[in-house]
């Protein structure tokens, strides 16, 4: 693990240096998006990739596999995220969440048959949503400018560093041989995409500028996750709801 820790520290240092002075995200109005030209190009590329490759694959997947099976696969991949969840719970000092995630993993891996089922949720142990991008946010690291990455999609420098750290701590890629992790990643992506076919279609239909809609949703949702559902700041409320006439 020496190598991982070093890499993680390097990434954290990078995040601290590069992002601390990043601009504040504005939940209410137009988001901070100085890289819009680049982002729109990447967004377009990702959309083409989705329309011509991932979505068709997901539709075929959806046609063959019942929803039940798709949800089971999704549970399985969620369960594999346990080390990442636990690490981030602990780094944010969330003892309760850490206990929930630990128990969830134990219950779902055993009674839930290697994680394909999720008996923990009905037992009052709901799924937690944590990642290292949120941990950095909790520690006060600013997100920096909105950034659309090829293939990876919507992000920002803080969350990008977060995904890097999370993937180091995902454990199973270090245990399982490389070709298998690639296949499992592909299955995860196609399976996930098949579960949100309708949602993505609706989101596209419901927006006038899909790029801006995704940007706004991503920015707001990340902020809300970092604050764990705690409400908008008075300034944000002012910005959003008190329009001077």
């Amino acid at each position, binding site marked *: 693990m020496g190598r991982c820790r070093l890499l993680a520290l390097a990434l954290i240092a990078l995040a601290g240096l590069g992002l601390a002075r990043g601009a504040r995200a504005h*939940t209410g109005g137009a988001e901070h998006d100085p890289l819009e030209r680049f982002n729109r190009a990447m967004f377009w590329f990702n959309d083409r990739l989705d329309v011509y490759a991932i979505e068709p694959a997901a539709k075929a997947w959806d046609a063959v596999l019942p929803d039940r099976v798709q949800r089971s696969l999704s549970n399985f991949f969620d369960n594999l995220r346990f080390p990442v969840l636990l690490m981030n719970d602990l780094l944010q000092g969330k003892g309760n969440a850490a206990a929930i995630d630990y128990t969830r993993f134990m219950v779902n891996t055993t009674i839930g048959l290697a994680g394909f089922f999720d008996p923990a949720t009905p037992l009052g142990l709901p799924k937690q949503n944590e990642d290292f991008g949120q941990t950095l946010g909790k520690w006060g690291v600013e997100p920096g400018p909105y950034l659309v990455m090829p293939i990876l999609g919507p992000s920002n420098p803080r969350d990008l560093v977060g995904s890097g750290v999370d993937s180091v701590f995902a454990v199973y890629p270090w245990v399982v041989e490389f070709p298998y992790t690639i296949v499992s990643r592909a299955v995860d992506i196609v399976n996930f995409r098949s579960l949100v076919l309708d*949602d993505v279609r609706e989101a596209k*239909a419901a927006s006038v500028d899909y790029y801006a*809609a995704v940007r706004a949703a991503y920015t707001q*949702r990340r902020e809300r996750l970092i604050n764990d559902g705690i409400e908008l700041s008075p300034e944000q409320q002012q910005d*959003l709801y008190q329009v001077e006439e």
Partner: protein
Amino acid sequence: MTTDRWWRRRITPWLVLGLGIASLTQARPALGEDSPTQVVETTTNAVIAVLANKALSAEQRRQQVEGIVYEHFDFVTLSKLVLARNWKQLSPQQQDAFVAEFKRHLSITYGRNVESYNNERAMVTGDRREAGDDWTVKTKIVRPAAAEILVDYRLRQLDGQWRVIDVTIEGVSLVANFRSQFQEIITAQGPDKLIELLREKNDRGEPLKSDASA
């Protein structure tokens, strides 16, 4: 697209429930003043009753939900908040046209979802007075075999009646989301272009799925 984990909460289709739930039974006479929470609570049950009523056609359900939403949403305030500073740049005619097209846009895009109803239930989990005398009513939508969805309504009093001025689903506000979309169009191309874009999109609006397959 791998990192959009926020999609996992499946935000969009629930906006129909979201929009619907915030309002009251159709044509129900006002019995004095309902509190914001009462407005949201009574509505929750009313919209779900319409959605669950399989005796109605999809189009009838859509119309009834639309009626409820129209009665309990303040689309003028919603439009002002969405356009923010730009609102004042619009002439009264442009403002009216924008409100009409925006309302139609919401109705068309979310109205299609009446067919996705799958035994969801909704419950009020709390409320809070906000700055400027607004109220937030927090609810959650409980779905069989899927994660809960948190939906917050922001209400403002107009002529003695509490009306919804924003819906926030899993942390994503309708007002903020559309503000971000419209901001650039209006700055770069002007209000007429925005209204025209909305109108074009609305005129192309897809019919209900069941109508399309019939």
